[in-house]
């Protein structure tokens, strides 16, 4: 089976998090990492300045 571009990341993150990934779950996890990477690429494209601080509190 061809190596997936996130294979190494998955193994490293799993070791760091102490989160074992069973062989049968691996394809699904890789697919979802792909989806997350696509979402992250979209968000990365936004032009933000460093004064824009996170704020999950909402006021009118």
């Amino acid at each position, binding site marked *: 089976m061809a190596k997936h571009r996130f294979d190494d990341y998955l193994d490293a993150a799993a070791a760091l998090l102490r989160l074992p990934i069973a062989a049968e779950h691996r394809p699904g*996890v890789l697919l*979802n*990492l792909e*989806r*997350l990477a696509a979402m992250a690429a979209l968000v990365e494209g936004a032009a933000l300045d460093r004064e824009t601080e996170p704020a*999950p509190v*909402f*006021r009118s």
Partner: protein
Amino acid sequence: MSGAQTSALEIAATVRARRMSATEVAKAALARIRANDPRLNAFTAVTEERALREAADVDARIARGEDPGALAGVPYAVKNLFAIAGVTTLAGARIEAETPPASADATAVARLQSAGAVLMGALNMDEYAYGFTTENAHFGPSHNPHDLARVAGGSSGGSAAAVAGGLVPLTLGSDTNGSIRVPASLCGIFGLKPTYGRLSRGGAFPFVASLDHIGPFARSVRDLAAAYDALQGPDARDPACTERPAEPALPVLDQGVAGLRVGIARGHFLPEFAEAQAAVATVAAALGAMREVEFPEAARARAAAFLITAAEGANLHLATLRRRPGDFDPATRDRLLAGAMTPAAWVLRAQQFRRWYRERVLEVFREIDIVLAPATPCVAPLIGQEMMMLGGAEVAVRPNLGVFTQPLSFIGLPICAVPVWPGGRLPIGVQVIAAPWREADALRVAYTLERAGVVSAPMAAGF
């Protein structure tokens, strides 16, 4: 009068006037659940003993001449992530079935009980609220009452199916990325996702702390507003719950829409789907809304909400993901495992973007009071359907049902989902979106549309 068609407020009026006892109403609702739930699989627990006890309490209060509450004798049920004293809180998960029964009610359940409502049971949902279809691997799928072969939507699918099928007139659900608005849309009923922080989540099993909301479902706007009013008020159990005093919506519903500037969301929210387009056009025409407005970068907002959800949701379940990943619903598991590995840089960037997006959207609301957008891209998909067409491309059903809801809950906006019937047979919802803390404006619009016959939530045929 307590047939399946009877509204919550009609039931309360009947019980208060002693034309029927709360106990008779409760027994009729229990009989309907027994007869019809096998076709829907909306309930995961029926709290018959509690229902009869609460109904007897309401009857005793009335007999003593006390005020039995605004929702006296109204049967209701809650998504199974709300704590019910004596019942195990499942949150749709087999793993949680091993936990002891809850020792106390969730705040929302306690408030509805204080208002005289009578709890009938707990309702099916996607595992840990991470889904839009309620095709739960452990407890089975909930069925759409308007077509049993189709999904009810999710994650509050049981809550929507129970109302659309007339089992109860009122239910509670939760909405993190669309979990009230999506099932309301697919089951053809009204659903309210209030402003983030408006209603207490005390005793509700969490999913994504900075995105979680709770709210009601009903077949009429007046019932929805009455439930919302009963649920309002500060609560120390929920750190995000507002200190603002309650702002009752029911008394202002008949103020109409005069003075409200209504617009239509364009860009991301202008779908290529005939049903969704027709639904928004119908509602816009009825309100005389011509102006198009844009929530800038809504697709990025949806992506940012997606990332925050994956990371926060996975972090919540990290201990069980390590120990027993095989016990999760396969539909949830791989997303949570991947979510646990989300790089911090992605999540922090998403939170930073959230601030920017909030500022831009609040600017839009300086020019407009209400914005209309579709609730879902399509009517209910079939149970088991994996793929659907979206904007000319084939995409997975599950993550994409929330494509129009997710960018709005992301910044906590209050939204009422209203049901439209473009083709006649299957419903689709429109989101009536208001500025933060302006739930009453959205409900006034919904009520105006309902009175004009533009939106409606008829009980499904055959129930």
